[in-house]
């Protein structure tokens, strides 16, 4: 990583140095802090200031894996974590593919993850800009109330070391603002939100966050429940981002190896419309989840997963790669010190088309613009491919946006939706998600309403 964190690296090194004969050890050590500010009706509702730290240790011996973690860097506690991880080894089933990542010579692509201006940004200015966001939002429309305006920032330092020669450390920080809105019209209330992210507060676009939060809430006032029918949907970039994120688990090499992906055995097949090219590229600095290393400490890299609709590649950690007799694609994921590595896409991006959302809508005779979805966790099954989600948005007729609609679902299967894509927008939005967004048009989706 670009900046080394010597004291954490030393802790990780000390753990790894204790490895015995035939024992692989990985130590992951991290420390971080956060600030959270919430404004309500012009006043500071809460101010959270906090730091945390911890260590996770993985031990592998004779093909068996054990893991333990603790939310402290106290030396006695670290010794206890190592002892627990070693004890846990004996309960695993031997797995010939178990093992830590080995340095593969792929070079890291340097990126900037630390912003000095954010690190030194004064608290009173953070509070002031959050108040400003609330005020701007209230000024957008007299029907709009603000539920909460938030400022959040965080910093983190991490070091990882292994007996196989991985040794990486680094630090990063980031910040964002968000605002939740309510819009009232007689008995009816609708909700909205807006946000802005940046390397430092100077990057915030408060005006845009305020405008989007007001628009999202007010545009649904008076919305009706639409009739049920098969139709064409235009997904807003924010919705496309969530749709693309679901595909991560189907492209996950471990899921493929274990028979949990409907894409298993389909490399080289046409699985999506030829206009659809999906890339996982954490080396792109525009991506919110950009990184230079993966969860095992290997260099992050660009991987083309679906090209012109043809399935090209799955993403792998060192474990899933060994199982499938291939090499890691630098896609180990990690949820902090309390978790051992998994596999997943890191920064998903579609190759954009050439048309704006307006132009895409102009090409739709009869359809619906989907601006919000809900219940993706409860109505989408990435193993069977069944897709059903609550939705709200605007009806489209003869290429023009019409009445707002809510309290309906859209449904199809993931397999069909990929093949039913009819247009891809040029309107890339680098959202705070592991997938960017752009407008996506999909035909033959069932809308269920009245």
């Amino acid at each position, binding site marked *: 990583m670009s900046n080394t964190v010597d004291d954490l690296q030393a802790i990780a090194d000390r753990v790894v140095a204790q490895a015995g004969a035939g024992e692989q050890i990985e130590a992951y050590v991290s420390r971080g802090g956060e600030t959270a500010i919430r404004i309500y009706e012009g*006043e*500071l509702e*809460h*101010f*959270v*200031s*906090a730091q*945390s*730290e*911890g260590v996770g240790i993985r031990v592998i011996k004779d093909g068996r*894996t*054990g*893991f*333990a*973690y*603790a*939310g*402290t860097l106290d030396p006695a*506690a670290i010794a*206890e*974590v190592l002892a*627990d*991880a070693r*004890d*846990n080894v004996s*309960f*695993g*089933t031997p*797995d010939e593919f178990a093992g830590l990542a080995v340095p593969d010579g792929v070079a890291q692509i340097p990126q900037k993850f630390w912003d000095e201006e954010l690190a030194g940004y004064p608290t009173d200015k953070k509070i002031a800009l959050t108040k400003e966001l609330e005020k701007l939002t209230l000024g957008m429309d007299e029907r709009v*109330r603000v*539920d909460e305006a938030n400022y959040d920032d965080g910093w983190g330092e991490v070091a990882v070391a292994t007996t196989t020669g991985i040794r990486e450390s680094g630090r990063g920080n980031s910040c964002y603002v968000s605002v939740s809105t*309510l819009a009232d019209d007689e008995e009816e*209330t609708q*909700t909205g939100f807006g946000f802005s992210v940046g390397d430092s507060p100077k990057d915030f676009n408060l005006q845009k966050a305020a405008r989007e939060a007001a628009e999202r809430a007010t545009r649904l006032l008076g919305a009706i429940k639409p009739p*049920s029918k098969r139709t064409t949907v235009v997904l807003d970039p924010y919705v496309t981002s969530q749709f693309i994120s679901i595909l991560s688990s189907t492209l996950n090499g471990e899921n493929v190896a*274990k*028979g*949990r992906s409907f894409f298993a055995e389909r490399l080289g097949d046409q699985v999506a419309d030829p206009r659809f090219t999906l890339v996982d590229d954490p080396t792109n600095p525009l991506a919110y989840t950009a990184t230079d290393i993966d969860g095992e400490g290997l260099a992050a890299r660009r991987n083309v997963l679906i090209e012109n609709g043809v399935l090209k590649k799955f993403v792998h950690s060192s474990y899933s790669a060994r199982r499938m007799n291939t090499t890691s694609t630098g896609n180990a994921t990690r949820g902090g010190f*309390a978790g051992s590595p998994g596999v997943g896409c890191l920064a998903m991006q579609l190759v954009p088309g050439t048309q704006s959302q307006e132009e895409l809508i102009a090409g739709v005779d009869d359809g619906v613009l989907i601006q919000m979805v*809900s*219940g993706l966790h*409860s*109505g989408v*099954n990435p*193993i069977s491919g*069944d897709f*059903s*989600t*609550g939705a*709200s948005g605007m009806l489209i007729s003869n290429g023009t946006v019409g009445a707002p609609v*809510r*309290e*309906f*679902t*859209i*449904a*199809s299967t993931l397999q069909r939706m990929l093949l039913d894509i009819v247009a891809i927008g040029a309107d890339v939005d680098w959202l705070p998600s592991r997938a960017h967004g752009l407008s996506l048009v999909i035909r033959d989706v069932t809308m*269920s*309403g*009245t």
Partner: protein
Amino acid sequence: MSSRSNSPLIEPDVIAKVLAKGRSTGAEFSEIYVEDKRSTSAGLDDGKVEQVTSGRDRGAGIRVIAGETTGFAHTSDLSERGLLAAAEAAAAAAKQGDGGVHTIALQPVFRHPVNTIVQFPDTVAKARKVELLQRANAAARGVHGAIVQVSAGYGDSVKQILIANSDGVFSADEQVRTLMRVSVIANGDAGMQTGYNSLGHTIGFELFDEHDVEELAVRAAQQAITKLQARPAPSGAMQVVIKQGSGGVLFHEACGHGLEADLVGKGSSVYRGKMGELVASPLVTVIDDGTMAGEWGAIGVDDEGHASQKNTLIENGILTDYMWDYIRARKEGRKQSGNGRRQSYADLPMVRMTNTFVTNGSENPDDIIRATDKGVYVAKLGGGQVDTASGDFVFGMVEAYLIENGEITEPLREGNLIGNGPQVLKDIDLMGNDFAMGGPGTCGKDGQGVPVGDGCPTLRVKSMTIGGTAA
């Protein structure tokens, strides 16, 4: 819950100093929440025990309230120095004002005796925990040759908490949770289908004396096998019969969140201003009960040190109360209801549900199905999501069947159902007499997850929109 040791996580004299430091900038309230949690989890996948994990989470959160402003800081350093530093940070965050000397007399708070732990999970050999996974794997795979993959997870935790505040509250609890889950994949001509089942209670390892791991796994496997024959779910509005147990999720989403006083107070609940009004069918009585022995949302005290309670929210269709935490109750000049909860020491408490359920009606569940000409029978609900301001909510059906002419016929593929909370509550026209609690749940709000329970008898909603694809 029963406790094995009386030694406090932090000595009372240190607590008093920390609380006084919290008020040193003139704040009227300070609070310390200390947590020490030990957990064990084990996962089996693809026939192998992949990993046993041991975890230790320990730290303190200090909350200081000055007027309408809350300052909060947390630390994993439980030394007197570490705690005082956190208290100073929280105090500075809450108010830059006059200092003052405050003395606080701490009084032990009544703790609701939730249940007795027979066998603390941290005293059970890991080998016995791992063996459960292997038994579940074998049982699921034995159901049918079409079962192609099984993953099973075991988890337990013992969490000591201590809460003290400048009002003199001094409270402690020991929260024990033991859980098992099984996920199964079956492969058939029309692709893969999944089955899922879980079991979790606020008890120790005796959970597995009372419940059969094989039965848990077999049910998950049967669900996947049944769904291999499933046809696409219908699209559009129709009658929906919800089975006892997991159907409680419907009420968690349709009205539970909307009855949380923080959302009501900010005017972001469709139930605001409706106290005393008929908000549901007279068949509906909704209760939130943190005292339910052994249930997943059971707690001795909430995370603000208030003893858990049984609260009636809707009685025979009439809205009788919201759920309350310290801040909202103080603002309204009323008592807390034992619903102030937080995910961990690193989080601020807010109004949360515990075990939320609907009480029995009088109908035989079989009669409810017989009375339904054409509809959907939801045998197992998944998660859900609600917009509390509009009342629109969804929930997933992970096991569902068509009802035709009063009989359950074909299995259906997965999908969401969508409805509007107040409308759905009014549209409940039949309530069964077979009340049961569902499986263990995790409720998410504002980025924090807390364990909750849900339950209901079999019931019918006369119209809800099914989000399938079939005409």
